[in-house]
């Protein structure tokens, strides 16, 4: 579509320019080129970015996932030898197989990790939604002059390193940590609870870390909601509570969906939180991948795990984008 308009614009310019400057045809093409060039250059920037920093690395990962592990440097085979040229390339392609992927299917560790990651990410998104919605709602209902400050407070944790914040949770959750001390001091419990190194700690960590990603889209969808809609609903006989369910919730659905995806997608591949807060029983694919890569030095299997993870995540990402597009169409 845009190509088409570009073309017609170009031809328009060409035909328009002709009668006026018949003796200087060179200048004409010069006038056209920079205009298109600028537009292309602008579009090129994100594409080059994606190509260099996403697509090429991903192709390398796919390549490694098709290789076999080897005691070598790098630790897989076959490798591409630049000096060998085309013959070497063919040899490399010939050495590829799907052995690693079959392996992933056979060993139940992997699909259990995937399932458990999806489950943890799903439950965490749900928890983040349950906690984030009231926060976003009260922010959107707060006096207008407070809102920037509240927004600031939501973003504030990002100013500290993510790693340090997760570490801090160890200090809070461990047996002799702050939480247990507080609960024992208050007399609620007699013996310290084991929270650290359990799935519960992973949930706490993920919900805490990704809560801002839930709150921000929710806030933006709740904040732009017209108050008169709620007034209209009460005017038509809706109790305030029912008006919330019939008007506020459906209208904030785009924010809910965006928030859930923004939590779910990174949570599936999360490695740091299960590694630091989770126990040995906590299965998450990010952790499995790390073990494969660094402990077992099995780059091909680790790459295969990463490729499958990406394929699993593409589904929600595509769904998310569809939703965003629909939303934009509606807004326009």
């Amino acid at each position, binding site marked *: 579509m845009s190509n088409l308009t570009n073309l017609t614009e170009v031809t328009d310019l060409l035909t328009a320019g002709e009668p006026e400057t018949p003796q200087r045809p060179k200048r004409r093409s010069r006038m056209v080129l920079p205009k298109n060039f600028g537009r292309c250059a602008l579009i090129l920037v994100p594409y080059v970015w994606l190509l260099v920093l996403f697509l090429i690395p991903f192709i390398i990962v796919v390549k490694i996932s098709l290789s076999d592990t080897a005691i070598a440097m790098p630790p897989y085979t076959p490798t591409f030898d630049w000096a060998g040229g085309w013959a070497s390339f063919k040899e490399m392609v010939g050495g590829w197989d799907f052995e690693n992927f079959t392996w992933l299917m056979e060993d139940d560790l992997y699909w259990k990790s995937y399932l458990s990651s999806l489950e943890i990410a799903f439950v965490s998104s749900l928890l983040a939604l349950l906690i984030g919605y009231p926060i976003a709602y009260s922010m959107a209902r707060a006096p207008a002059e407070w809102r920037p400050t509240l927004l600031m407070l939501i973003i504030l944790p990002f100013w500290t390193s993510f790693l340090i914040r997760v570490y801090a949770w160890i200090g809070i959750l461990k047996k002799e940590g702050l939480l247990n001390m507080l609960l024992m001091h208050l007399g609620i419990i007699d013996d310290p609870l084991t929270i650290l190194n359990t799935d519960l700690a992973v949930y706490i960590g993920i919900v805490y870390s990704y809560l801002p990603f839930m709150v921000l889209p929710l806030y933006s969808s709740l904040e732009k909601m017209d108050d008169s*809609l709620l*007034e*209209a609903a*009460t005017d038509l006989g809706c109790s305030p509570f029912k008006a919330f369910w019939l008007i506020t919730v459906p209208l904030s659905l785009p924010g809910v969906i965006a928030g859930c995806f923004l939590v779910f997608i990174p949570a599936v591949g999360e490695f740091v939180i299960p590694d630091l807060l989770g126990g040995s029983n906590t299965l998450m694919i990010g952790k499995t991948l790390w073990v494969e890569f660094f402990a077992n030095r099995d780059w091909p299997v680790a790459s295969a795990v990463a490729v499958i993870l990406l394929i699993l995540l593409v589904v929600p990402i595509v769904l998310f984008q569809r939703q965003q597009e629909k939303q934009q169409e509606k807004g326009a």
Partner: protein
Amino acid sequence: MNGSPNFGSGCSFAPWADPHEKPLIRFDAVTKKFDDFVAIDNLNLKIYEREFFALLGPSGCGKTTLMRMLAGFEQPTTGSIMMNQEHLTDIPPHRRPVNMMFQSYALFPHMTVEQNIAFGLKQERRPKAEIKERVEEMIALVQLQPFAKRKPHQLSGGQRQRVALARSLAKKPRLLLLDEPLGALDRKLREQTQFELMTIQEKLGLTFVIVTHDQEEAMTVASRIALMEQGKVVQVATPREIYETPNCRYVADFLGDVNIVGGHILGPDDKEEDIVQLAWHEDYAPLRVRLPQPVTFPAKGKEMWIAVRPEKVRITKDYPTDTHNILKGKVLDIAYTGNISTYHVRTEDGQIIKSQEANLEHLHRRAITWDDEVYVHWRAGGCVLLER
């Protein structure tokens, strides 16, 4: 109460004139404060059944606050609002037999036209068949049949306005509140919709309260107009009364165009005893005003004002006879607006008097043009005497 209630005191519908008639809505000494700002100041008002009542005033005069108190979105700081014999202030907004059409229309964007209109009925848990029937009836009333399945963002401004109206009417409220209902429509559509509103109000026999800052709109639709200023009702009267006999300069000036001349009461006219003379300038003859019946004479020497509408001021080149108030002046400006021409005449003492003439024939050459020496004059019965 019969036939068409939309006329002033000239018609038989005038419940406000009957002391035995019970008002539907009564404001008793209502004051509303927002922090230190007094939005409504000790206001008393009665609205009768089947009235089309207009709250008119400049922005910030409190008319919207008044309406929001009727809907229940604001509570009066002091005073009470009664509906029939019930205290309206005790009833939360979702239980009041009052519906409102919002200025922004406030249509639910995630619902179709049908669902929007059915919303209020569903809250009452009426049977499905009844809801369906009523929604169809409402859609037919506002002529939106082809758009029933559309969502608000697929409708034009005029169509949205109709949906909002249908939705607020669906529950047959005792009182319908219209908050600047036609503000977003263009002029042609607005005029047409004004008449439709009146027809619908008559047909359904409901009580409408409309908030507007457009005086023409208020004059067209309303049975009575309450003109507000800074939280107070300045005058409540039929459109005709409020235009012809305003009770102060603010009202005279707010509704339509007016010439105001100040002076002191001189005494009764020597020939006709219901005419009072007003000395306005030491070099000129006093002005004469016919007082309304029953005649009560203002005190001699009191400072008062004469208000006369430009269309009641004649303009001639020759000295007129058979009239009461004659001022000599020079034409300063002529505003030609097609249907009428407005002459701005500077009188000898420096005042500007406006005179309007209907352009009865094609205007080829004006009899009166710029800088002409002219006489502006009006009859004693064409002007009113104002105390403030």
